[in-house]
């Protein structure tokens, strides 16, 4: 699949933002006044920034407001509804904490649950697609949730929690990759089933339907950078999990904390680039590619 910057930024930033809001909802840290404004501000900036980035992906954004309608069947619609609900409830919590010095615990818990559900919806946009076997597995939402929670813990300054969570997120990411590598073969879709010609012999693409490129090839048969995937996987996990944990183990220092967050963010960006670049859509089979 085409690793569009808009969707990479969307999943990375909104995941981190909703992860932070999830911790703030639990009162971790239990902030009030100016520091509440700062923490909630960062959470909102990341979550909203990610959502705004996702709209750059739309070819006809004037209809984006209609995306809240079909939550009964569509994970993308559910994601939009859940995001707006989360931001509303978390916004009330932020106002309470920043200006009235109060934290309504049940409202906070609700915002945590909503934030995590939003991340789950984001993951399900991809995990629901049978056409991309690498994404169509239980590990996709597990990976999105563990990464968001680990990043949230890191941003919320929950050092003792963040360390195991970051390592868990790295481990889950690795398992997601290894399991994902087997999915295309397990799905059983081949040029034989795609054309139905397997019954009479072995089909091979002879001539494509068009001499130039097209939307399908640009969007779904994207093969750039796959040869470096193994190296990029190591770099991604090192940046998103190992470097931040090392930074947190060292004596506390604001510079190290910033480095930990930056490394984590970069690592997740690399991992999300791979998430799209390595994903193979079954339509590629018709073109003799993947």
């Amino acid at each position, binding site marked *: 699949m085409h690793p569009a910057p808009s969707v990479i930024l969307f999943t990375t930033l909104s995941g981190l933002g909703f992860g932070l809001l999830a911790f703030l909802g639990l009162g971790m840290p239990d902030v009030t006044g100016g520091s509440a404004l700062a923490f909630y501000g960062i959470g909102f900036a990341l979550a909203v920034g990610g959502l705004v980035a996702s709209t750059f992906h739309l070819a006809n954004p004037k209809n984006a407001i209609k995306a809240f309608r079909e939550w*009964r069947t569509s994970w*993308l619609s559910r994601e939009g509804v859940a995001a707006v609900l989360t931001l509303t409830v978390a916004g009330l919590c932020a106002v309470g904490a920043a200006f009235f010095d109060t934290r309504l615990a049940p409202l906070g818990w609700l915002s945590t649950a909503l934030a995590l559900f939003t991340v789950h919806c984001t993951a399900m946009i991809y995990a629901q697609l049978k056409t991309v076997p690498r994404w169509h597995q239980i590990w996709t939402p597990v990976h999105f949730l563990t990464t968001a929670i680990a990043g949230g813990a890191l941003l919320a300054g929950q050092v003792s929690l963040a360390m195991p969570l970051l390592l868990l997120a790295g481990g889950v990411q690795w398992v997601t990759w290894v399991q994902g590598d087997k999915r295309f073969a397990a799905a059983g879709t081949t040029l034989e089933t795609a054309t139905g*010609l397997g019954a009479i012999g072995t089909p091979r693409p002879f001539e494509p339907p068009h001499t130039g490129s097209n939307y399908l090839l640009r969007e779904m048969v994207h093969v750039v950078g796959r040869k470096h995937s193994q190296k990029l996987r190591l770099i991604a996990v090192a940046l998103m999990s190992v470097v931040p944990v090392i930074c947190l183990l060292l004596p506390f220092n604001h510079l190290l904390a910033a480095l930990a967050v930056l490394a984590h963010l970069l690592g997740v960006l690399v991992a999300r680039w791979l998430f799209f670049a390595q994903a193979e859509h079954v339509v590629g089979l018709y073109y003799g590619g993947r």
Partner: protein
Amino acid sequence: MTALPATTTRQLGLVIDLDTCVGCQACVIACKGWNTENYGAPLSDQDPYGTPSGTFLNRVHSYEVQPETGSAQLVHFPKSCLHCEDAPCVTVCPTGASYKRVEDGIVLVNETDCMGCGLCAWACPYGARELDLAAGVMKKCTLCVDRIYNDNLPEEDREPACVRTCPAGARHFGDFADPDSHVSRLTKERDGMDLMPEQGTKPVNKYLPPRPRDQIDVLAPLLNPVAEEPTGFLRWLDKALERL
């Protein structure tokens, strides 16, 4: 509404005969022509005189099939929307632009609702949906919904443009819900098949597999070599030339 109807009154669709298709691309052009000038946004082309790329609702691939024994066979393979019973492109749509009609099972896009997110194209295993880069909305086969019910057209033209134009008679249009229809009988008689059945989409359109070659190749026995070893004068010539 992007919920799929439990059943549709009729199941309109196509039968595509892979045995008959000659790969002339006439259906591709007829489709583009009709659907550029009629229902919805035109099918645009980008840089047509440079590195061309454009929107098509129907494309014809060609595959070489190598059987275990014997010579390879060339199969032309037209592909357009299969109007699936369990259409994954419809349920993923967040705006309600994509829908499957209860009355005839045609899968359509309401272009005034489409936001061009492209998720339906990702959800389709067949590559049947293409985002038009000029209009920014998703385009797909409408089964020429503006022809098949069009009383302004002569009756013989009230079928999809691709079917109407096919010079080989490789495309057939009809109602699969009616077991006695032309398309239902063809599917039954010729073992019509689903594409990617493992994807669980339950496509309405069916493909008829190419017939085995030996049944129709009436000339083959006449073209066999009549003598493996030369005799008489030719035998003497063969030996003489070898000795030289």
